[in-house]
Protein backbone atom coordinates (compact mmCIF):
# COMPACT_ATOMS: atom_id res chain seq x y z
CA UNK A 1 0.00 0.00 0.00
CA UNK A 2 1.24 3.46 -0.92
CA UNK A 3 2.15 5.89 1.83
CA UNK A 4 1.21 9.47 1.13
CA UNK A 5 2.19 12.83 2.55
CA UNK A 6 -0.05 14.28 5.20
CA UNK A 7 -0.36 18.06 5.27
CA UNK A 8 -2.85 20.51 6.71
CA UNK A 9 -4.62 22.22 3.86
CA UNK A 10 -7.85 23.91 2.93
CA UNK A 11 -10.58 21.68 1.45
CA UNK A 12 -10.43 23.67 -1.78
CA UNK A 13 -6.70 22.95 -2.00
CA UNK A 14 -7.37 19.24 -1.46
CA UNK A 15 -9.68 19.36 -4.50
CA UNK A 16 -7.16 21.37 -6.56
CA UNK A 17 -4.45 18.84 -5.60
CA UNK A 18 -6.69 16.02 -6.82
CA UNK A 19 -7.35 17.79 -10.13
CA UNK A 20 -3.62 18.31 -10.58
CA UNK A 21 -2.89 14.69 -9.69
CA UNK A 22 -5.50 13.60 -12.27
CA UNK A 23 -3.48 15.49 -14.94
CA UNK A 24 -6.54 17.39 -16.12
CA UNK A 25 -5.91 18.89 -19.56
CA UNK A 26 -8.65 21.53 -19.79
CA UNK A 27 -10.12 23.63 -16.98
CA UNK A 28 -12.74 26.30 -17.30
CA UNK A 29 -14.41 27.91 -14.34
CA UNK A 30 -16.11 31.14 -13.36
CA UNK A 31 -15.48 32.13 -9.75
CA UNK A 32 -18.41 32.03 -7.33
CA UNK A 33 -18.45 31.76 -3.55
CA UNK A 34 -17.69 29.21 -2.08
CA UNK A 35 -16.10 27.54 -5.12
CA UNK A 36 -13.70 30.49 -5.76
CA UNK A 37 -10.63 29.06 -4.05
CA UNK A 38 -10.65 25.96 -6.23
CA UNK A 39 -10.77 28.13 -9.38
CA UNK A 40 -7.95 30.32 -7.99
CA UNK A 41 -5.68 27.50 -6.81
CA UNK A 42 -5.95 25.77 -10.19
CA UNK A 43 -5.29 29.02 -12.07
CA UNK A 44 -2.16 29.44 -9.96
CA UNK A 45 -1.00 25.88 -10.61
CA UNK A 46 -1.42 26.35 -14.36
CA UNK A 47 0.28 29.77 -14.31
CA UNK A 48 3.23 28.38 -12.32
CA UNK A 49 3.64 25.47 -14.71
CA UNK A 50 2.84 22.88 -12.03
CA UNK A 51 -0.10 21.66 -14.07
CA UNK A 52 0.05 21.43 -17.85
CA UNK A 53 -3.49 22.39 -18.76
CA UNK A 54 -5.45 24.91 -20.77
CA UNK A 55 -7.25 27.22 -18.35
CA UNK A 56 -10.02 29.05 -20.17
CA UNK A 57 -11.44 32.18 -18.61
CA UNK A 58 -15.06 32.68 -19.55
CA UNK A 59 -17.92 35.11 -19.02
CA UNK A 60 -20.23 32.83 -17.03
CA UNK A 61 -20.91 29.28 -15.88
CA UNK A 62 -22.90 28.38 -18.98
CA UNK A 63 -19.75 29.07 -20.98
CA UNK A 64 -17.51 27.26 -18.50
CA UNK A 65 -19.64 24.13 -18.78
CA UNK A 66 -19.82 24.48 -22.57
CA UNK A 67 -16.04 24.78 -22.86
CA UNK A 68 -15.33 21.61 -20.88
CA UNK A 69 -18.16 19.82 -22.67
CA UNK A 70 -16.48 20.57 -25.99
CA UNK A 71 -12.94 19.86 -24.83
CA UNK A 72 -13.96 16.53 -23.29
CA UNK A 73 -15.71 15.65 -26.56
CA UNK A 74 -12.33 16.02 -28.30
CA UNK A 75 -10.88 13.52 -25.82
CA UNK A 76 -9.23 15.89 -23.34
CA UNK A 77 -9.66 15.23 -19.62
CA UNK A 78 -11.71 18.23 -18.50
CA UNK A 79 -12.90 19.82 -15.28
CA UNK A 80 -15.10 22.62 -14.00
CA UNK A 81 -16.54 23.70 -10.66
CA UNK A 82 -19.27 25.98 -9.40
CA UNK A 83 -21.84 26.64 -6.68
CA UNK A 84 -25.46 27.62 -6.28
CA UNK A 85 -26.77 29.90 -9.07
CA UNK A 86 -23.61 29.21 -11.04
CA UNK A 87 -24.35 25.50 -11.08
CA UNK A 88 -27.93 26.16 -12.07
CA UNK A 89 -26.72 28.23 -15.00
CA UNK A 90 -24.87 25.13 -16.23
CA UNK A 91 -27.97 22.95 -16.11
CA UNK A 92 -28.80 22.83 -19.81
CA UNK A 93 -25.23 21.88 -20.70
CA UNK A 94 -25.11 19.15 -18.04
CA UNK A 95 -28.11 17.34 -19.51
CA UNK A 96 -26.37 17.42 -22.87
CA UNK A 97 -23.08 16.17 -21.47
CA UNK A 98 -24.79 13.25 -19.79
CA UNK A 99 -26.85 12.36 -22.86
CA UNK A 100 -23.84 12.51 -25.17
CA UNK A 101 -21.93 10.48 -22.57
CA UNK A 102 -19.08 12.96 -22.12
CA UNK A 103 -17.12 12.20 -18.94
CA UNK A 104 -16.38 15.64 -17.44
CA UNK A 105 -15.80 15.92 -13.69
CA UNK A 106 -17.62 18.79 -11.98
CA UNK A 107 -17.32 19.97 -8.41
CA UNK A 108 -20.57 21.21 -6.94
CA UNK A 109 -19.38 23.25 -3.96
CA UNK A 110 -22.71 23.12 -2.22
CA UNK A 111 -24.41 26.41 -1.46
CA UNK A 112 -28.06 27.29 -1.03
CA UNK A 113 -30.03 28.71 -3.93
CA UNK A 114 -31.65 32.15 -4.12
CA UNK A 115 -34.16 33.40 -3.01
CA UNK A 116 -33.33 34.25 -0.26
CA UNK A 117 -29.78 34.98 -1.32
CA UNK A 118 -27.35 33.00 0.77
CA UNK A 119 -23.77 31.85 0.56
CA UNK A 120 -24.32 29.13 3.15
CA UNK A 121 -24.13 25.43 2.35
CA UNK A 122 -26.99 23.10 1.67
CA UNK A 123 -27.71 20.64 -1.13
CA UNK A 124 -30.42 22.64 -2.88
CA UNK A 125 -28.13 23.39 -5.83
CA UNK A 126 -26.82 19.91 -6.62
CA UNK A 127 -30.04 18.09 -5.71
CA UNK A 128 -31.55 19.96 -8.66
CA UNK A 129 -29.37 17.83 -10.93
CA UNK A 130 -31.04 14.63 -9.77
CA UNK A 131 -32.45 13.80 -13.19
CA UNK A 132 -29.65 15.04 -15.46
CA UNK A 133 -28.22 11.53 -15.87
CA UNK A 134 -24.90 12.46 -14.25
CA UNK A 135 -23.33 10.30 -11.57
CA UNK A 136 -23.46 12.20 -8.26
CA UNK A 137 -21.13 11.57 -5.33
CA UNK A 138 -21.40 13.43 -2.01
CA UNK A 139 -18.22 13.78 0.07
CA UNK A 140 -17.80 13.95 3.82
CA UNK A 141 -14.56 15.88 4.40
CA UNK A 142 -11.44 17.20 2.65
CA UNK A 143 -9.75 13.81 2.41
CA UNK A 144 -12.91 12.31 0.95
CA UNK A 145 -13.02 15.24 -1.50
CA UNK A 146 -9.43 14.52 -2.62
CA UNK A 147 -10.05 10.78 -2.96
CA UNK A 148 -13.41 11.09 -4.68
CA UNK A 149 -12.30 13.60 -7.33
CA UNK A 150 -9.58 11.21 -8.46
CA UNK A 151 -12.03 8.29 -8.42
CA UNK A 152 -14.60 10.36 -10.34
CA UNK A 153 -12.42 10.47 -13.47
CA UNK A 154 -11.86 6.73 -13.32
CA UNK A 155 -15.57 6.02 -12.96
CA UNK A 156 -16.79 8.49 -15.58
CA UNK A 157 -14.15 7.66 -18.19
CA UNK A 158 -14.63 3.89 -17.96
CA UNK A 159 -15.62 2.52 -21.38
CA UNK A 160 -18.62 0.78 -19.82
CA UNK A 161 -19.85 4.00 -18.21
CA UNK A 162 -18.86 7.23 -20.05
CA UNK A 163 -20.81 9.74 -17.99
CA UNK A 164 -20.10 13.09 -16.35
CA UNK A 165 -19.55 12.85 -12.60
CA UNK A 166 -20.63 15.54 -10.16
CA UNK A 167 -18.74 15.58 -6.88
CA UNK A 168 -20.75 17.49 -4.29
CA UNK A 169 -18.82 19.01 -1.40
CA UNK A 170 -20.36 21.29 1.22
CA UNK A 171 -19.28 24.91 0.85
CA UNK A 172 -17.35 26.35 3.82
CA UNK A 173 -17.52 23.16 5.90
CA UNK A 174 -15.28 21.53 3.32
CA UNK A 175 -14.19 24.28 0.91
CA UNK A 176 -12.76 26.70 3.50
CA UNK A 177 -11.86 24.43 6.42
CA UNK A 178 -8.28 23.37 7.07
CA UNK A 179 -7.79 19.69 7.81
CA UNK A 180 -4.96 17.16 7.51
CA UNK A 181 -5.12 15.61 4.04
CA UNK A 182 -2.98 12.76 2.76
CA UNK A 183 -1.93 13.17 -0.87
CA UNK A 184 -0.16 10.51 -2.91
CA UNK A 185 2.86 10.42 -5.26
CA UNK A 186 2.11 11.31 -8.89
CA UNK A 187 3.33 7.97 -10.26
CA UNK A 188 0.95 6.12 -7.92
CA UNK A 189 -1.98 8.25 -9.04
CA UNK A 190 -0.93 7.68 -12.67
CA UNK A 191 -0.97 3.93 -12.09
CA UNK A 192 -4.48 4.18 -10.67
CA UNK A 193 -5.77 6.64 -13.26
CA UNK A 194 -4.46 6.09 -16.81
CA UNK A 195 -5.00 8.77 -19.50
CA UNK A 196 -8.52 9.17 -20.86
CA UNK A 197 -9.06 7.03 -23.93
CA UNK A 198 -12.37 8.11 -25.49
CA UNK A 199 -14.64 5.75 -27.40
CA UNK A 200 -15.75 8.54 -29.75
CA UNK A 201 -14.21 11.97 -30.11
CA UNK A 202 -14.50 15.12 -32.16
CA UNK A 203 -11.74 15.08 -34.74
CA UNK A 204 -11.86 17.08 -38.00
CA UNK A 205 -9.99 14.26 -39.76
CA UNK A 206 -12.64 11.71 -38.82
CA UNK A 207 -15.88 13.65 -38.41
CA UNK A 208 -18.77 12.28 -36.36
CA UNK A 209 -22.08 13.67 -35.16
CA UNK A 210 -22.72 14.03 -31.42
CA UNK A 211 -26.22 14.89 -30.27
CA UNK A 212 -28.22 14.08 -33.39
CA UNK A 213 -31.99 14.57 -33.35
CA UNK A 214 -34.24 11.85 -31.93
CA UNK A 215 -37.90 11.37 -32.69
CA UNK A 216 -40.75 9.44 -31.12
CA UNK A 217 -39.41 6.17 -32.54
CA UNK A 218 -36.08 6.29 -30.74
CA UNK A 219 -35.93 8.90 -27.94
CA UNK A 220 -37.31 6.64 -25.25
CA UNK A 221 -34.96 3.87 -26.32
CA UNK A 222 -32.08 6.33 -25.93
CA UNK A 223 -33.25 7.18 -22.39
CA UNK A 224 -33.59 3.47 -21.61
CA UNK A 225 -29.94 2.83 -22.51
CA UNK A 226 -28.82 5.79 -20.39
CA UNK A 227 -30.89 4.47 -17.48
CA UNK A 228 -29.29 1.03 -17.87
CA UNK A 229 -25.81 2.55 -17.77
CA UNK A 230 -26.67 4.42 -14.57
CA UNK A 231 -27.61 1.11 -13.01
CA UNK A 232 -24.39 -0.44 -14.24
CA UNK A 233 -22.45 2.49 -12.74
CA UNK A 234 -23.35 1.25 -9.25
CA UNK A 235 -20.92 -1.62 -9.65
CA UNK A 236 -18.27 0.69 -11.04
CA UNK A 237 -18.53 3.15 -8.13
CA UNK A 238 -18.02 0.25 -5.69
CA UNK A 239 -15.19 -1.26 -7.74
CA UNK A 240 -13.24 1.99 -8.06
CA UNK A 241 -13.66 2.79 -4.34
CA UNK A 242 -12.38 -0.70 -3.51
CA UNK A 243 -9.32 -0.33 -5.75
CA UNK A 244 -8.58 3.08 -4.23
CA UNK A 245 -8.77 1.54 -0.77
CA UNK A 246 -6.43 -1.29 -1.71
CA UNK A 247 -3.86 1.04 -3.25
CA UNK A 248 -4.00 3.99 -0.88
CA UNK A 249 -5.61 2.66 2.30
CA UNK A 250 -8.38 5.24 2.07
CA UNK A 251 -11.94 4.11 2.74
CA UNK A 252 -14.91 6.44 2.67
CA UNK A 253 -17.33 3.86 1.32
CA UNK A 254 -18.54 3.06 -2.19
CA UNK A 255 -22.20 3.64 -2.84
CA UNK A 256 -22.88 3.88 0.89
CA UNK A 257 -20.93 3.67 4.08
CA UNK A 258 -22.17 2.09 7.30
CA UNK A 259 -21.03 3.35 10.65
CA UNK A 260 -21.85 1.29 13.76
CA UNK A 261 -25.06 0.01 12.20
CA UNK A 262 -24.62 -3.67 13.11
CA UNK A 263 -26.90 -3.80 16.14
CA UNK A 264 -28.39 -0.31 15.69
CA UNK A 265 -32.05 0.18 16.54
CA UNK A 266 -31.95 3.70 15.13
CA UNK A 267 -30.12 4.49 11.89
CA UNK A 268 -29.43 8.05 10.80
CA UNK A 269 -29.23 8.66 7.06
CA UNK A 270 -27.48 11.64 5.47
CA UNK A 271 -25.13 12.85 2.73
CA UNK A 272 -22.10 15.14 2.75
CA UNK A 273 -20.28 16.79 5.63
CA UNK A 274 -23.21 16.25 8.00
CA UNK A 275 -22.14 12.61 8.17
CA UNK A 276 -19.00 13.50 10.15
CA UNK A 277 -21.13 15.17 12.78
CA UNK A 278 -23.47 12.23 12.92
CA UNK A 279 -20.59 9.82 13.47
CA UNK A 280 -19.35 11.89 16.37
CA UNK A 281 -22.84 12.05 17.86
CA UNK A 282 -23.20 8.29 17.49
CA UNK A 283 -19.92 7.70 19.30
CA UNK A 284 -21.16 9.78 22.21
CA UNK A 285 -24.57 8.13 22.32
CA UNK A 286 -22.98 4.70 22.10
CA UNK A 287 -21.06 5.45 25.28
CA UNK A 288 -24.33 5.67 27.17
CA UNK A 289 -25.63 2.50 25.57
CA UNK A 290 -27.85 3.90 22.82
CA UNK A 291 -27.86 1.52 19.89
CA UNK A 292 -27.56 3.99 17.03
CA UNK A 293 -25.67 4.04 13.72
CA UNK A 294 -25.16 6.05 10.54
CA UNK A 295 -25.83 5.21 6.93
CA UNK A 296 -23.99 7.59 4.62
CA UNK A 297 -25.32 7.88 1.11
CA UNK A 298 -22.16 8.58 -0.86
CA UNK A 299 -23.67 7.96 -4.29
CA UNK A 300 -26.97 9.80 -4.77
CA UNK A 301 -27.37 8.94 -8.46
CA UNK A 302 -27.46 6.12 -9.32
CA UNK A 303 -29.41 5.61 -6.09
CA UNK A 304 -28.25 2.57 -4.09
CA UNK A 305 -31.73 1.28 -3.25
CA UNK A 306 -30.78 -2.37 -2.68
CA UNK A 307 -27.88 -1.48 -0.41
CA UNK A 308 -30.09 0.90 1.56
CA UNK A 309 -32.74 -1.78 1.99
CA UNK A 310 -30.16 -4.26 3.20
CA UNK A 311 -28.93 -1.89 5.90
CA UNK A 312 -32.16 -0.20 6.96
CA UNK A 313 -34.26 -3.36 7.18
CA UNK A 314 -32.34 -4.18 10.37
CA UNK A 315 -33.38 -0.96 12.14
CA UNK A 316 -36.52 -0.17 14.10
CA UNK A 317 -36.46 3.51 13.24
CA UNK A 318 -34.79 5.38 10.42
CA UNK A 319 -34.12 9.14 10.58
CA UNK A 320 -33.25 10.78 7.27
CA UNK A 321 -31.52 14.14 7.48
CA UNK A 322 -32.14 16.14 4.32
CA UNK A 323 -30.14 19.15 3.30
CA UNK A 324 -32.55 20.36 0.66
CA UNK A 325 -36.28 20.57 0.21
CA UNK A 326 -38.71 19.79 -2.51
CA UNK A 327 -41.22 22.49 -1.67
CA UNK A 328 -44.66 21.02 -1.60
CA UNK A 329 -43.55 17.55 -0.60
CA UNK A 330 -40.47 17.31 1.58
CA UNK A 331 -36.90 16.11 1.65
CA UNK A 332 -35.68 14.59 -1.61
CA UNK A 333 -33.46 12.06 0.16
CA UNK A 334 -36.30 11.06 2.49
CA UNK A 335 -38.56 10.57 -0.50
CA UNK A 336 -35.97 8.35 -2.17
CA UNK A 337 -35.27 6.31 0.97
CA UNK A 338 -38.99 5.85 1.61
CA UNK A 339 -39.41 4.73 -1.97
CA UNK A 340 -36.54 2.25 -1.58
CA UNK A 341 -38.26 0.76 1.47
CA UNK A 342 -41.84 0.99 0.37
CA UNK A 343 -42.17 -2.36 -1.34
CA UNK A 344 -41.12 -4.13 1.85
CA UNK A 345 -44.77 -4.15 2.98
CA UNK A 346 -48.02 -2.40 2.21
CA UNK A 347 -49.37 -2.03 -1.29
CA UNK A 348 -47.05 -2.94 -4.10
CA UNK A 349 -45.99 0.06 -6.19
CA UNK A 350 -45.32 -0.48 -9.85
CA UNK A 351 -43.50 1.95 -12.10
CA UNK A 352 -44.00 2.63 -15.78
CA UNK A 353 -42.13 4.86 -18.25
CA UNK A 354 -44.64 6.04 -20.82
CA UNK A 355 -44.85 8.74 -23.47
CA UNK A 356 -41.26 9.93 -23.51
CA UNK A 357 -40.23 11.91 -26.58
CA UNK A 358 -43.77 11.88 -27.96
CA UNK A 359 -44.18 8.10 -28.03
CA UNK A 360 -47.87 7.16 -28.22
CA UNK A 361 -49.65 5.93 -25.12
CA UNK A 362 -52.87 4.44 -26.45
CA UNK A 363 -55.92 3.01 -24.68
CA UNK A 364 -54.44 -0.41 -25.44
CA UNK A 365 -51.17 0.51 -23.70
CA UNK A 366 -53.11 1.64 -20.62
CA UNK A 367 -55.06 -1.63 -20.62
CA UNK A 368 -51.74 -3.48 -20.66
CA UNK A 369 -50.56 -1.51 -17.64
CA UNK A 370 -53.76 -2.32 -15.71
CA UNK A 371 -53.46 -5.99 -16.66
CA UNK A 372 -49.93 -6.09 -15.28
CA UNK A 373 -51.15 -4.51 -12.03
CA UNK A 374 -53.86 -7.16 -11.73
CA UNK A 375 -51.36 -9.96 -12.36
CA UNK A 376 -49.05 -8.59 -9.69
CA UNK A 377 -51.95 -8.40 -7.24
CA UNK A 378 -52.58 -12.08 -8.02
CA UNK A 379 -49.05 -12.87 -6.92
CA UNK A 380 -47.01 -12.83 -10.12
CA UNK A 381 -43.64 -11.28 -9.24
CA UNK A 382 -42.46 -8.01 -10.79
CA UNK A 383 -39.39 -8.61 -12.92
CA UNK A 384 -38.06 -5.20 -13.94
CA UNK A 385 -38.86 -1.73 -12.64
CA UNK A 386 -39.75 0.63 -14.21
CA UNK A 387 -41.43 -0.92 -17.20
CA UNK A 388 -40.83 0.96 -20.44
CA UNK A 389 -44.15 1.04 -22.26
CA UNK A 390 -44.26 0.49 -26.03
CA UNK A 391 -40.53 -0.02 -26.37
CA UNK A 392 -38.98 -0.80 -29.71
CA UNK A 393 -36.72 -3.56 -28.44
CA UNK A 394 -35.13 -4.00 -31.88
CA UNK A 395 -32.96 -0.93 -31.51
CA UNK A 396 -31.67 -1.25 -27.98
Amino acid sequence: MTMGTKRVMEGSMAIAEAIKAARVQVISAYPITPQTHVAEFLAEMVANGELEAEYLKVDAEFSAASVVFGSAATGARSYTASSSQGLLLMTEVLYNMAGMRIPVVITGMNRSVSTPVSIQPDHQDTITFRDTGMIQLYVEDSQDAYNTHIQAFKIGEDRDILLPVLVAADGWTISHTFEPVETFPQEEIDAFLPPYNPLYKLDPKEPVTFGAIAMAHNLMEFRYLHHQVMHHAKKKVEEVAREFKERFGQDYGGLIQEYRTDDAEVILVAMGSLVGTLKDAVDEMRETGTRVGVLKIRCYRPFPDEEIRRVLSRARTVCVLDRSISQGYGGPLTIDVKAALHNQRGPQVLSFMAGLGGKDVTIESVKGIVEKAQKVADGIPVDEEPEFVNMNWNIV
Partner: protein
Amino acid sequence: MKLNVGAVCGPGGSKKNKTGHWRSFRPKVDPEACNGCGICFMYCPDASIKIVDKICIIDYEYCKGCGICAHECPRDAITMEEERK
Protein backbone atom coordinates in the same frame (compact mmCIF):
# COMPACT_ATOMS: atom_id res chain seq x y z
CA MET B 1 -29.93 -0.09 -36.53
CA LYS B 2 -28.80 -0.30 -32.89
CA LEU B 3 -28.25 2.87 -30.89
CA ASN B 4 -24.62 3.10 -29.78
CA VAL B 5 -23.12 4.92 -26.79
CA GLY B 6 -24.49 8.48 -26.81
CA ALA B 7 -26.04 7.77 -30.23
CA VAL B 8 -22.87 9.07 -31.90
CA CYS B 9 -23.21 8.66 -35.65
CA GLY B 10 -21.49 9.53 -38.90
CA PRO B 11 -21.14 13.08 -40.24
CA GLY B 12 -23.75 14.85 -42.33
CA GLY B 13 -26.69 13.40 -40.43
CA SER B 14 -28.91 16.43 -41.01
CA LYS B 15 -28.58 15.86 -44.76
CA LYS B 16 -30.03 12.39 -44.36
CA ASN B 17 -32.88 13.69 -42.23
CA LYS B 18 -35.22 14.88 -44.98
CA THR B 19 -37.66 17.33 -43.46
CA GLY B 20 -39.82 18.01 -46.51
CA HIS B 21 -42.68 15.86 -45.20
CA TRP B 22 -43.18 18.29 -42.28
CA ARG B 23 -44.66 20.77 -44.76
CA SER B 24 -48.33 21.78 -44.56
CA PHE B 25 -47.95 24.54 -47.15
CA ARG B 26 -45.83 24.39 -50.25
CA PRO B 27 -44.11 27.44 -51.75
CA LYS B 28 -44.83 27.76 -55.46
CA VAL B 29 -42.63 29.96 -57.64
CA ASP B 30 -44.00 31.93 -60.55
CA PRO B 31 -41.07 31.90 -63.03
CA GLU B 32 -42.56 34.89 -64.89
CA ALA B 33 -42.54 37.09 -61.77
CA CYS B 34 -39.23 35.85 -60.32
CA ASN B 35 -36.12 37.79 -61.40
CA GLY B 36 -33.69 35.72 -59.31
CA CYS B 37 -32.81 38.56 -56.93
CA GLY B 38 -31.94 36.00 -54.19
CA ILE B 39 -33.76 37.63 -51.26
CA CYS B 40 -35.65 34.35 -50.62
CA PHE B 41 -32.32 32.50 -50.72
CA MET B 42 -30.92 34.76 -48.01
CA TYR B 43 -33.99 34.50 -45.79
CA CYS B 44 -34.60 30.74 -46.08
CA PRO B 45 -33.80 29.34 -42.59
CA ASP B 46 -33.27 25.82 -43.94
CA ALA B 47 -30.96 26.57 -46.89
CA SER B 48 -33.59 25.00 -49.13
CA ILE B 49 -33.48 27.62 -51.88
CA LYS B 50 -30.92 28.20 -54.57
CA ILE B 51 -30.87 30.58 -57.50
CA VAL B 52 -30.11 28.94 -60.84
CA ASP B 53 -30.16 30.97 -64.06
CA LYS B 54 -31.88 33.87 -62.26
CA ILE B 55 -34.72 31.66 -61.06
CA CYS B 56 -35.55 30.58 -57.51
CA ILE B 57 -35.39 26.77 -57.15
CA ILE B 58 -36.90 25.24 -53.99
CA ASP B 59 -35.60 21.96 -52.61
CA TYR B 60 -38.81 20.22 -51.57
CA GLU B 61 -36.93 17.37 -49.88
CA TYR B 62 -35.95 19.75 -47.09
CA CYS B 63 -38.31 22.79 -47.32
CA LYS B 64 -40.54 22.75 -44.20
CA GLY B 65 -43.00 25.22 -45.71
CA CYS B 66 -42.47 28.07 -43.25
CA GLY B 67 -43.44 30.64 -45.88
CA ILE B 68 -40.74 33.20 -45.08
CA CYS B 69 -39.66 33.25 -48.73
CA ALA B 70 -43.21 34.08 -49.86
CA HIS B 71 -43.48 36.79 -47.22
CA GLU B 72 -40.17 38.41 -48.16
CA CYS B 73 -40.41 38.24 -51.97
CA PRO B 74 -40.73 41.88 -53.18
CA ARG B 75 -42.32 40.75 -56.46
CA ASP B 76 -44.86 38.34 -54.88
CA ALA B 77 -43.40 35.61 -57.07
CA ILE B 78 -43.85 32.93 -54.37
CA THR B 79 -47.25 31.80 -53.13
CA MET B 80 -48.03 29.22 -50.43
CA GLU B 81 -50.40 26.45 -51.45
CA GLU B 82 -51.89 23.79 -49.22
CA GLU B 83 -49.82 20.60 -49.36
CA ARG B 84 -51.71 17.59 -50.68
CA LYS B 85 -50.07 14.24 -50.00
